[in-house]
C-alpha cells in the first residue's frame, strides 16, 4: 500500500478552561488514501468537528493540539508555520462547513469570491480566473452560471449556496475535501442532490473526502470507510458496509439500532440508555461503559485498546475477548 494522503497519529486536543483543562480528543488516529471517501460519525460533542478543524489547524483558543502528528503527504501539519499552513489550507485541502454563510461573504458577489480565492493561490490573469470559476460553477450543476456569477449570496437559496461553496472548495484542484455536516441545514431533497454531487465530483476528480456527520444514512450512501467517535475517541473503524451490516462496538450497534428505519413500524425502538457524558465528566475505563448493555468489570477500570481484524478496528473489551476465543478455537 502506498503512503496515505493524510495520516493522523495519536492526536490529542485539549481545551484550557477556567478551572480545568478538558481533553476533547484523545489518541485519535486514522488515515485516508487518495481518492478515498471516509465518514466520521458521532453525536454532538463526540469530537468529530474538533478532529476536522485540527487537521487544518483551525482550532481557536482555548483549544490547542497537545500531542500527536497530522501527516499530509508525509509533512507534519502541526509543525508548519501560519504562512506554510495557508498554502495548504484552501489549496491542497478544502473545507465545506455546515452553514454556507460561514464560507461566503455576504457583501461580495459570488464571482468575486471565487476569483479572489484563485488569485490567493495561483498567479492568474482576471479572464483566466473567471474562466476557471465558470468551469467550476458548471461542474456543480449551477444553472446559468453567468447570471449567478454577479449575484450576492443572499439572492441564492440554501442549496444553491452550498453548491457555490463546493465550487469554491474545488477551485484549486484539492486532493482532500473536508465536509463538516454539509447538508444538516438543508431539506432532504436538497440534501440528496448535494450528496449526489459530492459523490460524483470525488469520483470523477479522484479527490479524497472526509465527511463528518451525525447521519448514518448519509454516511452509508457516500463513504467507503467510516469512523465512529464517542466522547473524543475513535471507538470503531471499518468499511462502511461492514459497519452498517454488522457493527462490532456496542455504541455503533446502538446508534444503528436506534434508527427508526431499522425497526418495524410502531414498535419500540432499540434505544441506548443515558446520554453521552460531557467532557468534564468522562468516566474512567471505557467512556461508554455506563450506557453499555454488555458491560464487563474490566470496562469500568481499563481503557480498551484496539482489536484489529480484517482492516477494521474496535475499542471494546468484549470484542477483544471474543476475538481471542475465536483465535484459540481456530488454532485448536
Amino acid at each position, binding site marked *: 500500500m502506498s503512503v496515505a494522503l493524510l495520516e493522523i497519529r495519536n492526536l490529542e486536543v485539549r481545551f484550557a478552561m477556567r478551572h480545568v483543562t478538558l481533553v476533547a480528543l484523545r489518541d485519535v488516529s486514522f488515515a485516508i488514501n487518495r481518492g478515498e471517501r471516509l465518514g466520521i460519525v458521532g453525536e454532538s460533542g463526540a469530537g468529530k468537528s474538533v478532529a476536522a478543524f485540527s487537521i487544518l489547524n483551525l482550532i481557536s483558543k482555548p483549544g490547542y493540539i497537545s500531542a500527536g502528528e497530522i501527516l499530509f503527504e508525509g509533512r507534519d501539519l502541526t509543525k508548519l508555520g501560519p504562512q506554510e499552513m495557508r498554502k495548504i489550507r484552501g489549496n491542497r485541502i478544502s473545507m465545506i462547513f455546515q452553514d454556507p454563510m460561514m464560507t461566503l461573504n455576504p457583501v461580495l458577489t459570488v464571482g468575486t469570491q471565487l476569483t479572489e480565492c484563485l488569485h490567493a493561490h495561483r498567479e492568474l490573469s482576471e479572464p483566466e480566473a473567471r474562466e476557471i470559476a465558470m468551469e467550476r460553477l458548471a461542474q456543480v450543476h449551477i444553472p446559468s452560471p453567468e447570471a449567478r456569477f454577479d449575484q450576492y449570496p443572499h439572492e441564492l*437559496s440554501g442549496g444553491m449556496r452550498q453548491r457555490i461553496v463546493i465550487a469554491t472548495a474545488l477551485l484549486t484542484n484539492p486532493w482532500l475535501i473536508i465536509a463538516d455536516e454539509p447538508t444538516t441545514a438543508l431539506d432532504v431533497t436538497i440534501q440528496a442532490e448535494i450528496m449526489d454531487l459530492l459523490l460524483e465530483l470525488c469520483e470523477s476528480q479522484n479527490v479524497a473526502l472526509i465527511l463528518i456527520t451525525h447521519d448514518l444514512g448519509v454516511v452509508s*450512501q457516500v463513504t467507503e470507510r467510516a469512523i465512529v467517535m464517542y466522547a473524543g475517541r475513535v471507538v470503531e473503524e471499518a468499511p462502511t458496509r461492514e459497519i452498517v451490516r454488522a457493527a462490532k462496538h456496542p455504541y455503533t450497534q446502538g446508534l444503528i439500532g436506534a434508527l427508526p428505519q431499522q425497526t418495524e413500524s410502531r414498535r*419500540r425502538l432499540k434505544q441506548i440508555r443515558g446520554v453521552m457524558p460531557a467532557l468534564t465528566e468522562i468516566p474512567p475505563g471505557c467512556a461508554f461503559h455506563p450506557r453499555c448493555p454488555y458491560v464487563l468489570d474490566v470496562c469500568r477500570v481499563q481503557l480498551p485498546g484496539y482489536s484489529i481484524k480484517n482492516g477494521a478496528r474496535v475499542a471494546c473489551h468484549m470484542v477483544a475477548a471474543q476475538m481471542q476465543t475465536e483465535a484459540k478455537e481456530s488454532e485448536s
Partner: protein
Amino acid sequence: MTVGSGRALVEVRNLAKEFPLQTGFLEQLHFNHGRISRVRESVKAINGVDFDVVKGEALCVVGESGCGKSTVARAIMGLLKPTSGEIRYENKRIDTLKGKNLLPFRRKMQMIFQNPYASLNPRMTVQKTLQEPVRFHYPDLSPAEIGEKTAAVMQSVGVDPSWTVRYPHEFSGGQRQRISIARALAVDPEFIVADEPISALDVSIQAQVLNLLMDAQEQRGLTYLFITHDLSVVEHLGTRVAVMYLGTVCEIAPTRTLFATPQHPYTQALLSAIPRLNEVRPNHIKLRGEVPTPINLPKGCVFHGRCIHANERCLHDVPRLRKAASGVQVACHAVEEGRL
C-alpha cells in the same frame, strides 16, 4: 387498525394563513413612476388546508422547510389566528373562541415544541414548570394532590424526582425534552400536537424520546398530530401521513400505503431522497428548479414548475384533494386523469 373509519377528533377545513409583510401604513407606500401607490404583500404560509385527525391515530404532517407545517400546528393550538377557514374539535368550532370559553379545550389539547433549549422558562425550576399548568387547570386540587399528580407524570416520562428543584440549564437536550413532554401530559390531554419534537436531539436520544411518545400514546390513548421533516420518523410512528408542499396538502394516506405506493410526484421525490442505510447507489428522483417563494405563489398547482408530469391544466387549475377508494387523498391532476 382500520384507518379513516374512526371518528374525527380534529377537523381542519380550508385553513389559510397569511402574514402581511408590510405592517405599518408607511411601509406600504411605494413610489413608482412618479406615483405613490399602496402595496400590501403577504407571505401565504398555508392556503386552503383540509384534513381530519382521527381519534387515537398519529397523523404525521411532513414537508420541507417553509411548507407551512408548523403554521398549521400553531393555528390548531390557537397560537395563530387563521386568516380564513375553520378548526373544529369534537365538532365544536374552536378557532373563534376566546379566553374562558377556550379553557376546556386548552386542557384537552397540548403541544410539544421543537427546541428543548427555548421551550422551558430558564428562570423556573422543573417543579414550578410542571405544577403551574396543573394548578391552573385543576384549581380544586390541594398542593399535596398537585404534587402527587406531577410526580406520577414525571415518573411516567422518566424524569428523576430529584430534578424538581433544579433549573432547565442544568439538563441536556433529551432531559429537557422529557420535561417538556411531562408538562404537556400533566393536564391529562387527549390530543397532542408535537412540532418537530426530536429534530434538535442526537440520534441516540431521538430513539428514547420517540419511544416515550409511543408509550404515552398507548398508555393514555392519545391522539397525535406530529409535525416533522424526517421521513424515517414518519414511517415509524405515523398511522397516517399528510405531505405538504408550499402551503398545501398534496397527499394524505395511511403510512404503509404512502411509503409503498406514493402517488403525488412530490411525495415520490421526497421518499426517494431519504438516505437509507442499505442502499449503496441511491436513485434519487431529481426535481428541477427550486421551491418558489410563498409571496408570489405560482398559479394552478403550486408544484407545476418542478413537476415532470405537468401539463397545460396544471398551470391554471388548482388541484383539489380527491379521495380514492383506498382512503388515499391526492391533489394532482395527473393522478386524477390517470396519466401517472
